[in-house]
């Protein structure tokens, strides 16, 4: 530090041990929150049920065939970069669905992404995992609509619509990368998934949320590269 200014370490060294510890703990909190781009620590989270978390991680692990796609969550140590990063901070996000309105023929699922992450990161990929209960035999066409809030956050607009052929009970996946990317910078970055079937399936469209097969999205993101000034 320039003469006359006190660098943190020297300043700390001059403090009494008790005060020194408090200053260092405060520095640690400030440093971690700053690097996570959080204004403050998140309020008490509502963790998913243990069975839900284990079923999701088991499903992700079953994709062992292509370990490159295996999210870093399941690995120890640093998150593998999906592609050579520029030393930028990478994120893996596991988001479980919140139940929305539902009828015998349609279900709404809501996924929320935190504002800080959606502002300061670019989504590299995002995949929706759906577990179907026991649909009637034979392929069943399901319409999947991805809805996002309009810029004002008052209404929702359809970001995309896809026809899924559900062959039977089990997991299916859907790429929702473009829809999640389009949430970037929104005041309420929330993705709504609307599932609609041609007629009553005679059973809940999806496994009950109390069940451990709750729908989830896995996203990989990277801190935005600082705005580059092009010099002529």
């Amino acid at each position: 530090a320039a003469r006359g200014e006190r660098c943190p370490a020297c300043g700390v060294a001059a403090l009494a041990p008790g005060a020194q510890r408090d200053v260092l703990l405060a520095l640690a909190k400030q440093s971690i929150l700053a690097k996570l781009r959080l204004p403050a620590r998140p309020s008490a989270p509502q963790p998913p049920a243990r069975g839900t978390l284990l079923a999701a991680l088991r499903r992700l692990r079953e994709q062992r065939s292509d370990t490159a796609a295996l999210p870093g969550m399941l690995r120890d140590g640093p998150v593998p970069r999906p592609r050579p990063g520029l030393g930028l901070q990478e994120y893996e996000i596991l988001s479980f669905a919140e139940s929305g309105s539902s009828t015998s023929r349609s279900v709404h699922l809501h996924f929320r992404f935190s504002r800080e992450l959606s502002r300061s990161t670019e989504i590299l990929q995002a995949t929706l995992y759906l577990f179907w209960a026991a649909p009637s035999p034979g392929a069943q066409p399901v319409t999947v609509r991805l809805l996002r809030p309009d810029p004002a956050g008052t209404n929702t607009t359809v970001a995309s619509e896809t026809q899924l052929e559900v062959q039977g009970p089990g997991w299916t996946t859907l790429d929702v990368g473009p829809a999640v990317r389009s949430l970037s910078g929104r005041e309420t970055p929330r993705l709504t998934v609307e599932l609609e079937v041609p007629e009553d399936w005679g059973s809940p469209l999806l496994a009950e949320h109390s069940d451990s097969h709750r729908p989830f999205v896995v996203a990989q993101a990277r801190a935005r590269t600082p705005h580059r000034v092009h010099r002529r």
Partner: protein
Amino acid sequence: GIDCGADSRMCCRQEFFVDFKEIGWEDWIIQPEGYHMNYCAGLCPLHMAGIPGLAASFHTAVLNRIKAASAAAAVDSCCVPTQRRPLSLLYYDRDSNIVKTDIPDMIVDSCGCT
């Protein structure tokens, strides 16, 4: 690098472990249980500046050339991190999503004099 002892005065690495339970963060940080917020402290007298292996860097090489030219030109030498590694965190964000990230250069492994 050198770890600080009880009465170290020269440049060394001071270990400092932050237990997340102690600061009430264990409810939203799933892994790890704490953070090694080590830091560098101590003196860097000129005869220690730039000793190879303490802070072998281009900056040191240039300093050596300046010192070779004239002692008066030598500038202060500082006790700085010479090796750092990322802090891997698994945590719940404000929407209770589970996030895993590596924060680069958060843990100081060794210190040295520039």
